[in-house]
C-alpha cells in the first residue's frame, strides 16, 4: 500500500514550520531574499528550499479568502520525471515516494522540463550541480517516522497515512462541510493520481495550482517508445527490400522478368 499526505489548506495557518523542518532534516542552507512586503518567503522553491507555503489573498463567491498552499513534489503515481530520466535516477517506490539518486544522474535536466508541476530544481550556482526535490522523507519513512513537515505541523493541516484512507477521509470532510470546501481533491485524479492530496475552500486554479488532465502524462510516451522495436525491424526490412528490388531492376540485360528468373536459376 502506498503512503500519502493530505494537506487541508483550511487548517493551515501559514506558520511555515514545515519549511523550517524540511531545511533542518535535509541540512539545507537559508537563502538570501529581498522583502517583498509579504510574509511569504522565499518567493520560489529551489534546490535549497524543497517546500514552501504560498500565500494567496483572493476573492471567491463574493468573499475574501486568505488561503495558504504548500508547494512540494506531488509524488505522482505515474511520474514524468522517472519516465523521462534516461539513466533511471528517479524511481517511484512501492511506498509512494519518488526518489532521486545522485549516483546515476548525468545532469540532462529532462526531469525538470517534463514535470507537469514544475517541481525538480537544479543547483545552478554549483559547478557540479545535482537535481533537488522533496523526497517525501523516504529515509525517515523507512525508519518508521513521518515526513519532517508532517511531524512539525502544529495544526494538523498535514496528515500522513495510506493514500486510499486519506482520499476516503477527504471525501468525508468535504461531505461534512459543503460550504467550507470546493468539491475537489487535488491529486486524486490529477495526471493519473498523486501521493499528495489537497483540500481547498476555493478552486485550485485560483491558488495557482497547475490545471492538468486526469490522464498520466506518460501515456503517449509509453506508446511511442513501445513502437520502437517494430519500427526498427520494419524500416530495416523495407530498406533491404527496396535495395534488393532496385538492384535487380538495374542488373544489365535483366529488363524483362522471365530472363531475370533464368539468370537467378542458372547458378543452381
Amino acid at each position, binding site marked *: 500500500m502506498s503512503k500519502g499526505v493530505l494537506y487541508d489548506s483550511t487548517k493551515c495557518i501559514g506558520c511555515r514550520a514545515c519549511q523550517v523542518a524540511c531545511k533542518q532534516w535535509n541540512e539545507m542552507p537559508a537563502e538570501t531574499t529581498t522583502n517583498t512586503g509579504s510574509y511569504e518567503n522565499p518567493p520560489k522553491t529551489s534546490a535549497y528550499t524543497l517546500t514552501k507555503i504560498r500565500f494567496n489573498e483572493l476573492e471567491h463567491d463574493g468573499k475574501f479568502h486568505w488561503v495558504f498552499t504548500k508547494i512540494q513534489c506531488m509524488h505522482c503515481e505515474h511520474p514524468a520525471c522517472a519516465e523521462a530520466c534516461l539513466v533511471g535516477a528517479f524511481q517511484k517506490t512501492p511506498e509512494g515516494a519518488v526518489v532521486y539518486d545522485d549516483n546515476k544522474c548525468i545532469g540532462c535536466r*529532462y526531469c525538470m*522540463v517534463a514535470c*507537469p508541476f514544475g517541481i525538480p530544481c*537544479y543547483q545552478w550556482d554549483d559547478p557540479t550541480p545535482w537535481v533537488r526535490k522533496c523526497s517525501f522523507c523516504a529515509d525517515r519513512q523507512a525508519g518508521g517516522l513521518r515526513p519532517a513537515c508532517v511531524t512539525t505541523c502544529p495544526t494538523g493541516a498535514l496528515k500522513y497515512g495510506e493514500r486510499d484512507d486519506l482520499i476516503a477521509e477527504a471525501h468525508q470532510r468535504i461531505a461534512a462541510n459543503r460550504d467550507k470546501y470546493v468539491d475537489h481533491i487535488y491529486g486524486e485524479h490529477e495526471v493519473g493520481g498523486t501521493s499528495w492530496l489537497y483540500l481547498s475552500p476555493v478552486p485550485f486554479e485560483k491558488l495557482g495550482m497547475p490545471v492538468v488532465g486526469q490522464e498520466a502524462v506518460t501515456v503517449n*510516451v509509453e506508446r511511442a517508445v513501445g513502437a520502437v522495436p517494430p*519500427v526498427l525491424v520494419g524500416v530495416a526490412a523495407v530498406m533491404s527490400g527496396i535495395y534488393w528490388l532496385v538492384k535487380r531492376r538495374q542488373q544489365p540485360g535483366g529488363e524483362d522478368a522471365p530472363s531475370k528468373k533464368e539468370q537467378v536459376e542458372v547458378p543452381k
Partner: protein
Amino acid sequence: MMINRRSIPVGTIILTVVVLLGLVTMILRYIYGLGATTNMSDGRAWGLWISFDLYCGVALAAGGFTLAGIVYIFGREKYHTVARPAILTAFLGYTLVILALLVDLGEPWYIWRFLFNWNIHSPLFEVSVCVMTYTLVLALEFSPAVFERLSNLDFPVIRRFNWRIPLRVIRTIQIPLVIAGIVLSTLHQSSLGSMLLMMPETLHPLWYTPILPILFLFSAVAVGPAMVMFESTLSSRVFGHKLGLDVMSGLGKATAYVLGLYLLLKIVDLLARGDLALVATAYPQNLLWWGEIVIGVILPIIFFSMPSVRKSRTMLFWSAVLVVLGLVFNRFNVSMLALEIRPGFTYIPHWMEFAISAALVADAMLVIFLAHRLLPMHEEEEAAAESG
C-alpha cells in the same frame, strides 16, 4: 582543378576567432558552472543549447541518411556527387551535438553513466543510444574518403600500410551500414519528438499531438535534401565545385513532396483533434505556428513547384534556405517558445550561450573547409585521381 585563393583567408580567420572565443567561454562554464554562464533557471531548464544544438542540429544533419538512402538504397546515381559531402556534414553535425551536450549537461564527466544505467522507457535513452551509434556509423560511412586519400599519400610510415584493405572492408559492409544509418535516424529523429510527448500540460496544443514523432521524422526527411542544397551551394562558392542543376532541382522536388505530406499530416492532425480553430484564435502562439508553416512549408512548396525556380540555382538555393529556416523555427517553437515556462521566470539566452553555439558551428565549418582541401569529396575527383 586549380582554384585561385585569396592570399589572406579572411573567412578562416573569422571562424578561428569565433572558435577561440567559444573555447574560452567553455572554460569559464566549467569553472563557474551553468548558473554563472547561462540564463537557464529552474523555470527554463533547457535553453539555447538544447533547442539549437540538439533539436536543430540533429534535424539539420538529416541530409546524411536521406542522401545515403537516395543514392545507395534507391539507386539514384545522379545524386552520388553530393552523398559524400552530405555524410561528412551529418557526421560533423552529430559530433557538434555531442560536444554541445558535453557543455550543456550538468555533470558531463558522468555522461558514460547512461551506458550502465538503462531506462529503456525513456525516449531520451533511445536518442542517446541512437546518436552514439549513428555517429559511429557516419564515421564509417565517411571513412572511405580518408582511406582513399591515405592510400595515395607518399609519406614514410603511411605508405607502408595497405589502405586498400580497410577500404575494401568498408565497401563490403557499405549497404548494411547505410541501412543501419536509416534505421537509427528514423528512430532518433522521431524520438526527439517523443521526448516532447512528456509535456502534454506545458506544450501548446497547436504542437502537442500524439503523432509528434512522425511529424519530426517527416520534417527531418524534408530538410535533409534542402540542407544539402544549402551547403553544396555555399561550398561551391568557396571551392568552385558547381552542383548540376538537375541534381539541385531534383532535390528541390523531393523536398517539396515530403513537405506536402508533412503539411497534410499537420492539418489532418489538427482537424482530427478538433483544434484547427487554434490557428486563428490562439494568439500569440498562432503567429509562431503560421511563421514556421509559411516560411518553412508553404512558400518552399510553391517555389519548388514553379518551373522557373527549378531552372535557377539561386532561386533553388533561397527556397532551400526557407526550408532550413522554417525547420529551425519549428524546433525552437516546440522546445522553447511554445513550451510553457514556470510561472515567475523569464529566459533570454546569455551571450556565453550564443558564443558556445556559434563556436561549435564555426568549428564544423572549419573542418568542412579542411576536408574539401585535403580529402576527395566528390566521386568525379576520386575517379579522375584514380585514372590519372
